């Protein structure tokens, strides 16, 4: 009996041993469309303030749920400001720290393997385009914008059989990179990849993709989260964000 008890105690003791680094100084949770821009901003911030950042990317909806249930995020960059408003209403983020940090741009992308690039949304009806990749309009902000734009030019119903939904915007891009979709509507911030050509979609065709951020209330280092927001919205951050095609606060 004591042997079995010691197995259980041993297992519990083993479970109490931490895995990996415990001191992450700032945990930044961010929407997938920030993948490339933040890959550049994070090291700059780490150097400037001598802190270590853990970057967790995912779909805004999933990250918001996780933060609501106690995920160790210090700061949350959403792809859509409604998520930040919702979390502020629930007391999950600190309302005073809310800030707009970018407006996303939608692009019409054509896989290079599918021939000459499309320049107008209506061309998605061409027979050579058999699949159109978009993020899921039910929950992904870029997917919603894509649906609005396609409805605005009157091709949504016609295109529906061709649409393939990605879980998030990176997933939609991947459909084109893997050759599964000939065209798609994705984020400008991710569009500079060898596999695709693109043109931007007229902003007037969809509701603005306003992206906002806030510090998480449970954060033990709110000042560092705030510093990261200020860095992204500061001179160094803005240069990078602009280069990846985001419109910046004050420009929209």
């Amino acid at each position, binding site marked *: 009996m004591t042997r079995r008890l010691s197995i259980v105690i041993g297992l519990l003791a083993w479970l109490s041993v931490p895995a990996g680094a415990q001191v992450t100084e700032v945990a930044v949770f961010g929407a997938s469309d920030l993948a490339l821009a933040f890959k550049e901003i994070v090291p700059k911030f780490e150097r400037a303030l001598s802190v270590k950042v853990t970057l967790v990317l995912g779909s805004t909806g999933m990250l918001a749920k*996780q933060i609501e249930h106690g995920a160790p995020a210090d700061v949350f960059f959403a792809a859509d400001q409604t998520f930040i408003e919702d979390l502020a209403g629930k007391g999950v983020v600190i309302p005073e720290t809310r800030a707009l940090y970018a407006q996303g741009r939608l692009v019409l992308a054509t896989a290079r393997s599918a021939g000459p690039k499309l320049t107008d949304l209506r061309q998605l009806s061409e027979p050579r385009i058999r699949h159109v990749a978009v993020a899921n309009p039910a929950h992904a902000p870029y997917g919603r914008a894509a649906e609005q734009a396609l409805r605005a030019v009157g091709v949504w119903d016609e295109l529906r059989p061709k649409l393939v939904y990605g879980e998030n915007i990176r997933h939609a891009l991947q459909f084109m990179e893997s050759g599964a979709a000939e065209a798609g509507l994705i984020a400008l911030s991710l569009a500079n990849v060898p596999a695709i050509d693109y043109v931007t979609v007229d902003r007037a065709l969809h509701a603005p993709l306003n992206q906002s951020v806030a510090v998480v209330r449970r954060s033990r280092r709110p000042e560092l989260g705030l510093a990261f927001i200020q860095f992204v919205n500061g001179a160094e951050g803005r240069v990078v964000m602009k280069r990846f095609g985001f419109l910046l606060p004050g420009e929209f």
Partner: protein
Amino acid sequence: MDFFPIALSARVSVTATALTMLTGIPLAWALARRQFPGRRLLDALVVSPLVLPPTVLGYYLLVVIGSRGPVGRLLDGLGVSLAFTWRAAVIAAWLGSIPLLIKAAQAGFDGVDVRLEQAARTLGRTEWSVFWSVTLPLAWRSITAGIVLAFCRAFGDFGITLMVAGSIPGRTQTLPLAIYDHVQANEMAQANVLSLVAVVMVVLLLIGVGRLARLRY
């Protein structure tokens, strides 16, 4: 290339399999040998983790063990956090894999002739001793099959872990989560290497475990 996910996955899957054995084998035995109210219901319910979409299951688990959930709040008071730690990955892997062990072990226990157990009892063996020296050895082949399936399922868990442990690099990003992350970033070379590592690791571990299992009985 970051090797942390490899070490983490080894740790999580082995720990989860140990936990699955400790909880699944007694439960399978109870389902096979005991009569109690709600047995049929429980018998059907234990497979539910296989039925629900893993991310949804992960979300429910998060609601229970997260900072707002009943279990999460209780543990928070004790200074223990489960969600978004490697322990959460263990629980995720345990939940996803336990039906496989229970069903296999149950079939194993069902196949053991109760007359052999009764014979042991007439020779003065206690229930505990009957279980360890008669029932378990005779059911062991099915149980090992269940352990192998459970281990593989635990190693490969993606959806439940993603929701309840997060995909936090250097902390809760297991091998499947890291592979997915590389694929999403179109870093196919890294994804391919890690996939190969995952398969080789599991094959080596299974060969090792297979040896151990044969040594035992």
